[in-house]
């Protein structure tokens, strides 16, 4: 056993939030040899290797589940690796990530699924592979979905790309029903989005930037809702960014469709008025949209239409971002700000209750992926985050652990600081 592994931790007097049971209470949590051994008041624990965490005034919740993360490994290791990405995750209080398959080579074969699982065995947090729907993400040939499912994929996605061939998408959906895994869908109509850089609207015309109309998302969401209705596939629309999208998802769910969706913290936080600075870290796909769209997403969370928040952590090199707005890559990192950005906006500003918010990043994404996570359970391996919800801090570039530093939140003042994260039963992160 690694001498530096700290598997005996006593978290004292924190406000425990258990979204699964819908409970909130002050309690100590004692983790012994990596297992959540005891919960209660004034636990007396001893041991020479015991780490004590003073969680007074802090909240204690299950480690977060980020279901949309790009770890760039294999193929783009200068942007991020499984090792560095998972370290960034635990800094953000995240103990489970689902990683997207647009790596190089892509996660479209049994051996690549196994690569992810093997390489992440010793990583700071749990990594679950989402396998590709089509070979090479080219949108023309379906992958060996049965074999991928058996190898350990938790779902399928072509994220980064969207399957344009409706017939093919339909057959993917039909085939997925044999295995019961969700399809995580990035919805983009290339005929609409082609050449666009930002949301098409008042600001894009003001700033002289080509726009990506919200039609790009909405047309495909409409298509996929129809296809899912016919095929009875389990679909999950990821990074919803439009009012139209929220409305369609709401209606589809009311009609009985097995449909879920997530939004990113940046889509909840920003609207396209922020683009005036031409900050390339705000160049995102789908783009940050109008205030009207942003408010629709907030309403969607309040109304229970939005099921989860996921970062869409998309690392890029400085060289890829420090260039003209047109040439810059799309994307922002998001693991380390998943909690703070969405907490600041939803709980502090919009007054959404903490347990409801926590469920959006714990039990809900766990349920969508069909995994055992996002819970506080005695007798199981501990995955816990301790968070100081009172301190406000400015997001600084130099504070990021992620290999890439392209965060949309640099310069923003956010509330919610992760004090420590216990992941896979070990103290994986502690804030100095």
């Amino acid at each position, binding site marked *: 056993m690694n001498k530096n592994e700290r598997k005996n931790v006593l978290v004292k007097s924190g406000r425990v939030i258990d979204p699964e049971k819908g409970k909130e209470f002050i309690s100590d949590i004692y983790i012994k040899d990596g297992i959540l051994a005891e919960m209660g008041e004034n636990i007396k624990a001893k041991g020479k290797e015991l780490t004590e965490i003073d969680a007074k005034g802090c909240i204690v919740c299950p480690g977060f589940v980020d279901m949309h993360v790009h770890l760039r490994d294999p193929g783009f290791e200068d942007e991020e690796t499984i090792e560095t990405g998972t370290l960034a995750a635990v800094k953000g209080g995240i103990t489970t990530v689902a990683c997207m398959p647009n790596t190089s080579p892509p996660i479209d074969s049994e051996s690549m699924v196994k690569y992810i699982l093997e390489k992440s065995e010793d990583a700071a947090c749990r990594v679950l592979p989402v396998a590709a729907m089509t*070979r090479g993400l080219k949108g023309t*040939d*379906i*992958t*060996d*979905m*049965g*074999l991928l499912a*058996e190898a350990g994929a938790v779902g399928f996605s072509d994220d980064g790309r969207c399957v344009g061939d409706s017939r*093919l998408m339909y*057959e*993917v959906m*039909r*085939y997925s*029903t*044999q295995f019961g895994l969700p399809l995580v869908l990035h919805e983009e109509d290339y005929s609409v989005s082609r050449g666009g850089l930002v949301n098409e609207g008042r600001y894009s015309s003001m700033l002289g930037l080509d726009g990506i109309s919200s039609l790009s998302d909405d047309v495909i969401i409409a298509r996929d809702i129809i296809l899912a209705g*016919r095929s009875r596939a389990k679909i999950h629309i990821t990074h919803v960014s439009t009012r139209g999208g929220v409305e369609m998802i709401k209606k589809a769910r009311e009609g009985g469709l097995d449909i879920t969706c997530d939004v990113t913290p940046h889509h909840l936080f920003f609207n396209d008025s922020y683009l005036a600075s031409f900050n390339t870290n705000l160049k995102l796909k789908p783009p940050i949209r109008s205030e009207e769209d942003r408010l629709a997403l907030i309403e969607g969370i309040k109304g229970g239409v939005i099921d989860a928040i996921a970062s869409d952590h998309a690392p890029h090199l400085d060289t890829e971002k420090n260039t003209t707005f047109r040439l810059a890559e799309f994307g922002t990192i998001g693991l380390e700000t998943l909690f703070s950005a969405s907490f600041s906006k939803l709980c502090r500003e919009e007054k959404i209750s903490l347990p409801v918010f926590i469920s959006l990043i714990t039990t809900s994404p766990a349920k969508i992926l069909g995994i055992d996570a996002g819970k506080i359970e005695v007798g199981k391996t501990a995955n816990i985050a301790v968070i100081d919800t009172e301190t406000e801090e400015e997001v600084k570039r130099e504070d990021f652990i992620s290999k890439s530093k392209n965060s949309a939140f640099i310069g923003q003042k956010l509330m919610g600081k992760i004090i420590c994260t216990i992941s896979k039963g070990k103290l994986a992160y502690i804030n100095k």
Partner: protein
Amino acid sequence: MLNKKSILDADSLSLEDIKLILSNADSFLEISRRDVKKVPTLRGKTVINLFFEPSTRTKTSFEIAAKRLSADIINFSPSTSSLKKGESIIDTLKTIFSMKVDLIVIRHSDSGTVKMVDRFVDIPVINAGDGKYQHPTQALLDLYTIKKRFGKFEGLKVAIVGDFLDSRVARSDMNLFEKMGMDVTIVSPTMFLPEDFSAMKVKHCIGDVIEDADIVYMLRMQFERQDRKFYPSVMEYNRFLTLNMDRLGKMKPGSIVMHPGPVNRGIEITDEVMDTSGELAEKIVIEEQVTFGVAVRMAILYLILG
């Protein structure tokens, strides 16, 4: 004598027709076991094998059947490059018709063509493979094979495994098997099933039926682009649909493995299974199907032309 002159599909075969063909097949099987495998029954009759789609098995089977009945048989395989839409088919038929033949055996790659030909001519037409539609003589010889092995049909469990949508064999077999009282399950991935398969018994993995089935019927699977539709790969097929030694070993006593042939080794059935000897090899009746095919086709020719 059959109630109609032509055999175009399995649907229109009555129980009497089926029983008549199967009972006569026994006699023709006996002839095929003699040294002199010939009887003069159809002497002077002319049969034409009109194959627009290549075939070795079926064409040869009909040829042998006709010759053993002392009929004259002519093989006519128009090359596909010389065919333009439906025009040339009609011209071809007119030519044949003026040669005063007695029966046409026809195979074509476009569904419905055999029926079209039957409407056009006065002589009997036998469907030797109509596009993706039906292959009734195959289904009849399959029935005969099952009769020889089990002595009955009622209550037998059949699993038809593979690309159901594109298989004329599957369509004819399913029709006849259910007509004779057998319990049919289709084992097929979603790509090869109709959109709504709620009226059929369906499974997606051969493992789900292998221990229960009396008959495991493997359909041919092609992996050329135009044939495999959206199916991912051979590897995925091997995992969910291929008959390998492990699965063969799980089959119940007395059960059999059938295939219309030719077998794509490594796809529908592994090399190991095809080459196995010993107890398990007795389950594989593919060669018997071929032998019985000649006898059944002799019975059909005899009952139509005799």
